[in-house]
């Protein structure tokens, strides 16, 4: 019987196609990516069926952590963060900020310190500032600094949209206080940031 010879094939495969795919995906992710902004607190938002997307700019965000601390954040479109700090200095003449402190404030994300600790907070170097446990902005009726932040924030960027990003387990009285503060400043329309969940009405249709 003649021997059947199995022809030996090369184990090398053409990598060109795979390379193409890899770089196609790479390009896609590079173009669509937006880096996560470093948050000072981790917030697990509740879910809703609402599908309204939030724009990237003109956002004034009030974050409420699970333990009821309140943080303030505003995006820096048209240098509104710098202006915000200047306006706070005008309102509180005892608080004057150096150019370095203004720069630090622009680069920081959410702020959750009382006004009298703000200078000290901004004096920390970048790394310490991230790990610093911020005590939250006072929202008591006697010392409601959140209302100052909101008012100056709106003055520094009049087109701002106000959003509340609360943790699922944060107690309602805190949220109520924040909402009351907003209403006292005549903000009657605001957005609650939520995760997406399936709409049961649409599910029925499937």
């Amino acid at each position, binding site marked *: 019987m003649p021997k059947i010879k199995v022809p030996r094939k090369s184990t090398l495969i053409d*990598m*060109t196609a*795979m*390379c193409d795919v*890899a*770089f196609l*995906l*790479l390009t896609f*992710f*590079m173009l*669509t*990516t*937006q*880096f*996560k902004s470093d948050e000072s607190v981790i917030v697990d*938002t*509740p*879910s*809703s*069926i*609402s*599908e*309204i*997307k*939030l*724009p*990237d700019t003109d956002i004034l965000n009030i974050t*409420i952590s699970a333990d009821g601390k309140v943080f303030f954040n505003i995006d820096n479109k048209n240098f509104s963060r710098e202006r915000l700090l200047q306006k706070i200095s005008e309102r509180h003449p005892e608080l004057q900020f150096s150019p370095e402190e203004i720069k630090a404030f622009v680069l920081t994300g959410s702020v959750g310190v009382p006004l009298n600790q703000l200078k000290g907070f901004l004096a920390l170097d970048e790394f310490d500032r991230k790990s610093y446990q911020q005590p939250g902005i006072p929202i008591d009726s006697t010392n409601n600094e959140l209302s100052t932040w909101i008012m100056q924030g709106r003055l520094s960027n009049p087109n701002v949209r106000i*959003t509340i*990003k*609360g*943790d*699922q*387990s*944060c*107690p*309602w*009285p805190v*949220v*109520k206080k924040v*909402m009351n503060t*907003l*209403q*006292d400043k*005549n903000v*009657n*329309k*605001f*957005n*609650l*940031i*939520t*995760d*997406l*969940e399936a*709409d*049961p*009405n649409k599910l029925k249709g499937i």
Partner: protein
Amino acid sequence: MAELEQKQSGKKGKKKGRKKMSTRIDLTPMVDLGFLLVTFFMLTTTFSKPQTMEINMPVKPKEEVIEEEQNAVKASKALTLIIDGENKIFWYQGLPGEENLPVETNFSADGIRKVLVEKNMTIAEMVVLIKPTDEANYKNVVDILDEMNISNIKRYALVDITPLDLELIKNL
């Protein structure tokens, strides 16, 4: 250039010029690099913008009298939801009293959603009053606001809890 001349003289009979190199390069390291970067961007990306739920609060009335008048008009068409801690929820229709006690239900599809859909069909121009107690958490309130969207109820309001309501649910 002496070398070159030597070579030429050495390979006299052969017509081969330069040695033909293969144009194929090993792409494996490049693919490795590509996928590494893909993984990096995949993990760091925030794919979608956050969702948001828009909420309009009524303008705060300047005088208490006006508020009372507003409430008086609504009473017959009102459905009140009281959100308590531990994911409990109570509801009653109209004015509460001995014969109109709050009913306990839960956040499931058979619980509050059923009630809302039923009442929305029977009561014309229903107004839902949402009263979270101090024990309620943010998730409960957002869930209820979401139920309003699901049941397509347009008229609802977040209202402060009254001592009477607290009394009623305590006695249940």
